[in-house]
């Protein structure tokens, strides 16, 4: 894919509200004429996806994160296939942005921005093929835990976990069972093989199970250091942060977990209050990059020597941007722990 110049990215940002209004108008026009089969029930929600995709484009264009766009489009593919809109749903969103960019923005900027979307469209069939080949459940224990979590039977789930703890350490359990289970639940939901209530039930149960594992396994503190964990602003995926908190507690760290994404100012206030030796940010959706960078700048301004460690899908996709800001990007829970050991001890 071609790169995006600064002038094109800035023009897109300046005109973003106008572009968004035109794209939303196009979506409502398409819904009115419902040329796409099955589109009608989804019309009330399509504007949310359009906005989310627009936020993604803002980030991708500004930071030249072309690979992130290809990665994030998987979420849309899963979403639209799960809603029986398939490729038409994805094309509706991309074409609407494409035509609006072409119609509203001047050249050559509009062509630069469009080229990236056109190439993305060309790659979608191969991305879909790859996605089709992904096996949802491969491990017997993962499959069992998923079943228990969505059944909402907390006592049976705890017994199952306790049994596994006879053969595995708690940190192994988190990395080898809990994380793959979370991924599996995410995939099942994206593939529309889970009802929304089942996903909620699984999330609630998983939080309880993580507390249970931590309760059973936390050693006396080994490291005399404080950590603060938080999701990045507007990132609602706090289950990963909860799992990480359990994992690090099991590894002997003292920590506080702020959970789902607070505004940057609130994260800064928490840093001031608790004075941690490291701030660990969980960053899932790449479209939250701006808020993440704001948080980092705000914290670094007042605490320049504070280690900021950041992980999650978004962090990996925007690794180079975050590293430039002085953050340490980690790929796994284990790498996070290793980084803490080397930085703080």
């Amino acid at each position, binding site marked *: 894919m071609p790169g995006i110049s600064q002038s094109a990215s800035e023009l897109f940002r300046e005109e973003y509200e106008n572009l968004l209004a035109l794209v939303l108008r196009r979506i409502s*026009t398409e819904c009115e004429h419902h040329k796409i089969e099955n589109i009608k029930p989804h019309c009330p929600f399509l504007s949310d996806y359009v906005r989310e995709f627009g936020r993604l484009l803002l980030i991708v264009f500004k930071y030249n994160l072309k690979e992130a766009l290809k990665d994030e489009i998987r979420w849309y593919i899963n979403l639209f296939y799960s809603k029986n809109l398939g*490729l*038409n749903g994805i094309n509706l969103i991309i074409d609407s942005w494409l*035509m609006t960019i072409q119609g509203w923005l001047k050249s050559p900027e509009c062509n630069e921005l*469009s080229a990236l979307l056109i190439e993305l469209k060309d790659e979608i069939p191969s991305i879909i093929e790859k996605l089709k080949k992904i096996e949802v459940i491969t491990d017997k224990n993962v499959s069992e835990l998923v079943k228990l979590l969505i059944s909402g039977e907390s006592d049976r789930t705890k017994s199952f976990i306790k049994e596994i703890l006879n053969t595995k350490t708690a940190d192994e359990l988190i990395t080898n069972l809990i994380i793959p289970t979370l991924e599996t639940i995410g995939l099942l939901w994206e593939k529309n093989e889970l009802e929304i209530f089942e996903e909620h039930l699984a999330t609630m149960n998983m939080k309880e199970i993580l507390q249970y594992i931590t309760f059973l396994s936390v050693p006396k503190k080994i490291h005399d250091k404080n950590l603060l964990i938080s999701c990045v602003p507007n990132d609602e995926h706090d289950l990963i942060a909860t799992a990480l908190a359990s994992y690090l507690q099991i590894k002997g760290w003292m920590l506080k977990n702020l959970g789902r994404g607070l505004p940057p100012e609130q994260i800064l206030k928490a840093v001031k209050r608790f004075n941690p030796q490291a701030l660990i940010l969980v960053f899932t959706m790449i479209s939250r990059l701006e808020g993440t960078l704001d948080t980092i700048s705000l914290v670094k301004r007042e605490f320049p020597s504070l280690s900021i460690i950041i992980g999650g899908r978004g962090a990996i996709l925007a690794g180079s941007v975050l590293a430039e800001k002085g953050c340490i990007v980690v790929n796994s829970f284990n790498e996070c722990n290793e980084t803490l050991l080397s930085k703080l001890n």
Partner: protein
Amino acid sequence: MSNLRLKNIAKDFYDGRNLRRVLYQTNLTFYPGELVVLSGPSGSGKTTLLSIMGLVLKPTEGAVYLNERDITNISDNQAADLRFKNYGFIFQQHMLIDGLTVLDNVLIAFAVQGKKIRNDQKNRAYQILEKLGLKEAINMQPLSLSGGMKQRVSIARALVKDPLILLCDEPTASLDAENGITVMRILKRTAIEERKIVIVVSHDSRVFPFADRLIKIENGQIVSDTREHYT
């Protein structure tokens, strides 16, 4: 399938001293059921392109096909006949005749043939005016209509002959926001429900959300052609 096809079309004009190319080699095919927006700055060649599509201008090079029949070199009379049968035109100005009622302004599309207007033609005019929300205005005169209503009458006049192709030159330019959107809604519905080829020349941003296909032209060349892809 019915279509309008431009094959290697180019157009030169003599400006008094030099021969100037105003439209470079262009290949485009239009199909029923799509609303195409042709956009570009003033002097970009979009009106020239529209005039070639509408058989008002002949291309210097290339060929125009209507339903796969080459109509590039037909006589002026043949062109007028084809236009009458297959084309409807909508302009920025509604071009209604004061002194005639709304219904008569629509029926004038038939009256220009010099033949008596048939009942079925009259009925079709009634139906279209009703569909466009002008039932109550049928016996009114253009002077008592709003700008938006006048433009809707001009759409009715273009549609009454049931043409395959609707060519619209800046149809929203003289309308306020609400009426502009109403007109575009009608054109979109016409393209989809009545399976017409609707081509709208415009640089009004309000028309972009209604496009199934957006063609941009600059300095006589197509610089982008974006169309939706649904299965």
